[in-house]
């Protein structure tokens, strides 16, 4: 067990250390400063902008920026929807995979356009190589870049003083793709290929096993997709089994590289924000606040998974290596728990163990990560979500020091509160109402066994499965609890809608908020103003996150994982 804890600690520390460097690099990229990689990457950026006819000097206000973001996303949605719907006749389909069914296409494309990557299909049987590359992998690059672009624009707004322009969406999008995701994905992809992840256009291998049975082993253009699925907090695997599949995550080294990839950009974004605002102390405070939620969650989850399952122990199964049901032996319980918490807090959603098989309280940590959705969070959007909590914390504490609440010298007034409230409200609304509808549908169907065979496990665990599905969609996470048969019109449509709304409401509302704050004059900081870059504020922010999270989700936590946990003993 000891080495596993060392591995967990080392992974976290290494990621934090490298995030400092990447944060500075991204700051340089988005403020147009020279970087080491310019000679190679700048021509790509220039080429893309020239081909698309974007004038890089044209500035956009928050409305124009939002419209560009939405229009480009709608265009991508339509194009990729078309690809998967007619993939049978498109090239690069050696295994002859059929067209996708419409509600499943709706769900899949909405899922990948929203950077969620919830998968109600299995890659090896559901998508051609063409679809994998030009629909899935393409979206995984561009949607991640969309999140980063939105975040950068919002930060420009916060830094601005009587400003209306937030930058140019197309330039930010191109920069994020060409200068951040491309080089990193190349690096990680090469490591994965070295570790044995397939990279081929040839079709599945027909093999004969030792027992003499015929087996079809799927392969394809796996390595690049796995790299970007992790780096862009996408999470959608090439294969249905995601990174539990030996081709997606063959070795401890690939496991380390992928865990690093999950957290690196979300962590680095915090530093980038600090540089862009010229407030590195604020970045430290936010980063430490995030760590103060993340580390206890990791510690608790690792302890739960490494501690084994008392119910299975009671059956006389040895639990000394931890709760290994649904986990990969080459990964182990501890690193599975680390991955699980990391992939859920960051809105990534790739898995290296079956989340359904986590101990109830370990599973609670996974749910919690997605409920909060702001602890590092998805690339770009995590910082945006945290900003909403910062605004709420600033509002309450600002009044407590006897001033109209201010953030970075700008007054937080009715308009800002409205927009922050919208973003704050949407998340629990999507999760609770979605789950409630699922529960009602399930409970009111006369014979659930035949009519709606969603749940293999009714009771508290089944509740957790449905809750998890909506939580994962609303958090744009994309991991599945599994154990729930989700490829049905109900789940395809409901989660598809939730994913779409949960992507754009929490991006557009904060963009509007940033637009409103940007236009305001920044008042100078004095001894009488609230310092957001202080330990006291960090504590307040932490308490606001914990208390609001608790208030929104404690009832469902009790009805799902906690009730299940209490029955184990």
């Amino acid at each position, binding site marked *: 067990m000891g080495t596993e804890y060392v591995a967990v600690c080392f992974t976290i520390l290494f990621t934090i250390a490298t995030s400092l460097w990447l944060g500075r690099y991204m700051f340089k990229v988005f403020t147009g400063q020279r970087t080491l990689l310019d000679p190679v990457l700048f021509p790509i950026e220039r080429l893309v902008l020239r081909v698309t006819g974007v004038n890089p000097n044209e500035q956009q206000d928050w409305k124009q920026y939002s419209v560009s973001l939405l229009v480009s996303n709608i265009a991508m949605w339509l194009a990729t929807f078309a690809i998967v719907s007619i993939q049978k006749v498109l090239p690069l389909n050696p295994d002859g995979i059929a067209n996708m069914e419409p509600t499943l296409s709706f769900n899949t494309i909405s899922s990948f356009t929203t950077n969620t990557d919830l998968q109600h299909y299995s890659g090896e049987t559901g998508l051609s190589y063409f679809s994998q590359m030009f629909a899935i992998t393409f979206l995984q690059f561009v949607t991640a870049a969309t999140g980063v672009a939105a975040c950068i624009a919002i930060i420009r707004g916060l830094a601005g003083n009587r400003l209306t322009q937030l930058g140019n969406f197309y330039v930010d999008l191109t920069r994020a793709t060409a200068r951040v995701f491309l080089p990193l994905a190349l690096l990680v992809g090469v490591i994965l290929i070295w570790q044995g992840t397939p990279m081929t256009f040839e079709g599945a291998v027909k093999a004969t096993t030792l027992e003499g049975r015929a087996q079809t082993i799927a392969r394809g253009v796996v390595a690049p997709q796995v790299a970007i699925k992790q780096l862009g907090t996408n999470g959608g695997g090439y294969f249905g089994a995601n990174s539990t599949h030996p081709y997606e995550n063959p070795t401890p080294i690939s496991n380390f590289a992928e865990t690093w990839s999950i957290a690196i950009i979300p962590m680095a974004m915090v530093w980038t924000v600090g540089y862009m605002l010229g407030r590195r102390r604020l970045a430290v405070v936010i980063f430490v606040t995030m760590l103060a939620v993340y580390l206890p969650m990791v510690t608790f989850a690792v302890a739960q998974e490494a501690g084994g399952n008392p119910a299975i122990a009671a059956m006389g199964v040895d639990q000394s290596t931890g709760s290994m049901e649904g986990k990969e032996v080459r990964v182990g319980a501890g690193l599975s728990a680390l991955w699980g918490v990391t992939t859920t807090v960051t809105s990534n959603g790739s898995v290296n163990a079956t989340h359904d098989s986590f101990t109830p309280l370990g599973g609670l940590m996974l749910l919690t990560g997605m409920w909060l959705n702001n602890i590092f969070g998805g690339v770009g959007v995590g910082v945006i979500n945290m900003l909403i909590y910062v605004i709420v914390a600033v509002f309450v504490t600002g009044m*407590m020091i006897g001033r109209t609440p201010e953030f970075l010298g700008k007054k937080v007034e009715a308009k800002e509160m409205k927009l922050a409230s919208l973003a704050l409200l949407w998340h629990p*609304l999507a999760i609770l109402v979605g*789950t409630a509808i699922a529960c009602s549908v399930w409970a009111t169907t006369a014979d659930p066994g035949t009519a709606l065979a969603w749940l293999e496990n009714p009771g*508290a665990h089944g509740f957790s499965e449905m809750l998890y599905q909506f939580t994962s969609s609303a958090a744009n996470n994309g991991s599945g609890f599994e154990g729930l048969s989700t490829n049905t019109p109900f789940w395809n449509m409901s989660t598809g809608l939730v994913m779409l709304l949960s992507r754009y409401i929490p991006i557009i509302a904060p963009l509007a908020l940033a637009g409103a704050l940007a236009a305001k004059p920044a008042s*100078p900081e004095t001894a009488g103003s609230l310092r957001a870059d202080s330990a006291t504020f960090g504590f307040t922010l932490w308490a606001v996150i914990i208390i609001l999270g608790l208030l929104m989700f404690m009832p469902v936590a009790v009805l799902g994982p906690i009730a299940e946990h209490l029955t184990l003993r």
Partner: protein
Amino acid sequence: MAERARTISIWDPGIVGQAMLGSFRKLDPRIQVKNPVMFIVEVGSLLTTIIFIHDLAAGTGRPLFTGQVAVWLWFTVLFANFAEAMAEGRGKAQADTLRKTRTEAVAHRLTAGDRMDTVPAASLRKNDVVMVRAGEFIPADGEIIEGVASVDESAITGESAPVIRESGGDRSAVTGGTRVISDWIKMRVTSDPGHTFLDRMIALVEGAERQKTPNEIALNILLAVLTLIFLLVVVTLQPFAYYAGTEIPIPVLIALLVCLIPTTIGALISAIGIAGMDRLVQHNVLAMSGRAVEAAGDVNTLLLDKTGTITLGNRQATEFVPVAGVTEGELADAAQLASLADETPEGRSIVVLAKEKYLIRGRELADKEAAFVPFSAQTRMSGINLDGREIRKGAAESIGAYVRANGGVVSPELQTIVDRIARAGGTPLVVAERMRPLGVVHLKDIVKGGMRQRFVALRAMGIETIMITGDNPLTAASIAKEAGVDDFLAQATPEDKMALIRREQSEGKLVAMTGDGTNDAPALAQADVGVAMNTGTTAAKEAGNMVDLDSNPTKLIEIVEIGKQLLMTRGALTTFSISNDVAKYFAIIPAMFILAFPQLEALNVMRLATPESAILSAVIFNALIIVALIPLALRGIAYKPLGAAAILRRNLLIYGVGGVLLPFVGIKAIDVFLAAVGLA
């Protein structure tokens, strides 16, 4: 100007009685709907009551439990109404006292045939002619039509030396609120005062015309969204319960909802706002709007007039400097004699200094041949003729002219003394006897006691003070240094003042100032907080957003503190309200699902007796905490002039951490009581 602190006891029986009646009157849904949080509670109370009646009639359910929940939910609404009615009642009481004690400047209006009527200054109309005599305030802006007088305009210009105003020419305009020091004038009023001005402000204090302030609106949005979130949380519990094979009684869901939504702050929010305005009135300040009070809390820069605010309005004698051949005692004696009949503060201060420093006592002059020469605008000197002696005091030029007229010479030595005093920021007053100059009395602006400490406290709160004065930069610098202000604006014209405010505002700062002259009006309007003195002109009062009835410019500092206290109280109670919810969850959630999941008893950390008593205890705690916090809401939370970080730590500890812990204790205590009495 005495500060009349009119405090009303929190539990004044008259107000409490009225407020109790008012709490029932406010049950009207048309009133409740303005406060979304409390409206939800009222709807919940109504629903629970209907269920209770139905249960009672049909003999189903648990009427004892449902009945009690209903009663306490109604109490929650009533307590909230009571808090608001209390604040309004106190506001009304303040306003009534204000109407009675309101003293307004009077004016002597000349009517046809030179008859003189004494009328309130506010009733003056344009083109009325009034007589103003020495010692009286000029009742309105106007034009002198007859006479010449020295006028103390320090209240508006900051210049402590009186100025000459006379009919004809460009020195004929006088400003309301300034004071005639010598002689008399006949003037024609040039502006119509808006006489309903004060009444309009008093109406605001009563709360009748209260509009929500920007911060209150923003807070209401946060409270509304929290309410919506909790509504979602509670409403979705029923489908979850169906799934788990159980059903939660509606009254239990309503009880949980009411406990979770921020009722504490929702109930007290308007009381806090009204009470904030009230506290200003207790300091004799009327605010035009709640917005102004909030802005006061945000002020970064205070513009303070030197005269009357930082220094005692008038200069005082601090030193006698004789010329060669004259002893200090001789000079002091002569200066005292010349000032015996001088009733100005400067004159009195000379008598006092001579008495204190040289033990020269005021003499009985009745038996001697003494003739006092009062200050006049023509000679610009005053003095005494006594036993053939002729002693005069006055400005260096006037006395110089007097000495030369009597055949004397002004020595360079005297000029040196005069210059030295002027350079040090003082005012030299030369004393002479006919042709012989005796020396100089050093008159100095005296910084009010305690001002230095207040400026230190303001700095700790992050507020910068700028002294405004008409004095020359040398004088200004020396007083600024002595008082400890951050900066000063010397030889300030109204335009300079305006420019200063604009400059500060362009840096994103909020500026507060006081003023009373018509020429202050643009600056008062431009400033974020403009406090007009009640003695000031109507134009000034209309331009500002507050009026100080005591005309005490120092009060600006209290106004800032009251503004801060208002926001702090709101923030503290919001924090407290939200923190409270944690304990309520631990009381209610296990109680709700104990039938479906018996193992949830493990979450009953307070070991509450039964599910019913757990829910009831939470509801009762939720209602009682409102009453318990009414005094705090009305009085405001304790305010200390500390830096933001220190204040935040303190309030977080009390209202945040305290807010999490207190309900655990409170709910447990109520539960023990309920179990003992057998109510649940």
